[in-house]
């Protein structure tokens, strides 16, 4: 495995990799700048002004999930460990249902954008503040 990896990084393939990477970053920045001209409120920033249909939102979340973790990580796990890697990826899938049924529905109409906001909204703020600061996981978007 290690020798295979060493062969892959010749200088031409590295140039190609870096070029593709820079093009990708440039396109992403261009889209971000274009979108930022139309972003005025917090709702626009966090929730797209609530103008996305459910299907479009689903596509965006799908894009989130099919990230490097899936294409690189799962592919690598299955290549290295076979069935165990496959089993591991099923865990991601079923965990999404937990987010759907147990988290998203209960947060949906609170009008808040992040988990931290929702907790602050529902509970007394002071006692929450310290543990929240220590827990980066609670800052993930309530993507609803």
């Amino acid at each position, binding site marked *: 495995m290690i020798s295979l990896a060493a062969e892959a990084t010749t200088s031409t393939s590295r140039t190609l990799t870096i070029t593709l990477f820079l093009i990708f970053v440039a396109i992403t920045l261009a889209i971000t700048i274009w979108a930022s001209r139309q972003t005025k409120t917090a709702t626009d920033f966090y929730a797209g002004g609530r103008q996305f249909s*459910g299907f479009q939102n689903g596509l965006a979340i799908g894009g989130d999930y099919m990230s490097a973790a899936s294409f690189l990580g799962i592919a690598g796990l299955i290549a290295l460990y076979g*069935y165990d890697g*496959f*089993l591991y990826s*099923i*865990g991601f*899938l*079923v965990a*999404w*249902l*937990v987010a*759907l*049924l*147990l988290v998203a*529905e209960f947060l949906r*109409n609170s009008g808040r954008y992040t988990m931290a906001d929702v907790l602050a909204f529902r509970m007394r703020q002071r006692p929450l503040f310290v543990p929240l600061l220590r827990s980066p996981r609670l800052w993930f978007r309530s993507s609803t």
Partner: protein
Amino acid sequence: MTTEATPSEKYLEVQRSEEFAGLRRKLRNFVFPMTVAFFLWYALYVLLSAYARGFMSAKIVGHINVALLFGLLQFVSTFLIAWYYSRYAAKELDPIADKINADLKEPRS
């Protein structure tokens, strides 16, 4: 205008109402059993993979064995649950929620 309840009182009133309690009950009666069900289904898959290797490695068609099929079934069941939930929410939950929302907004407009 002066006899109108403050917003927080209105929300408390809604929370105490029968309609809202019904909405919550409907949601929970769907979500909690479904959660237990899919969790048990997934746990079955993982436990069989760990402890019933003979059964899981039985080949069905060519190189495809029970374990791979079982994993794909997890995909199918996840999609089915998501689809069924969206139907259930549109049919049962959204009408009640919209009605409560409309009632709340009425006196202000």
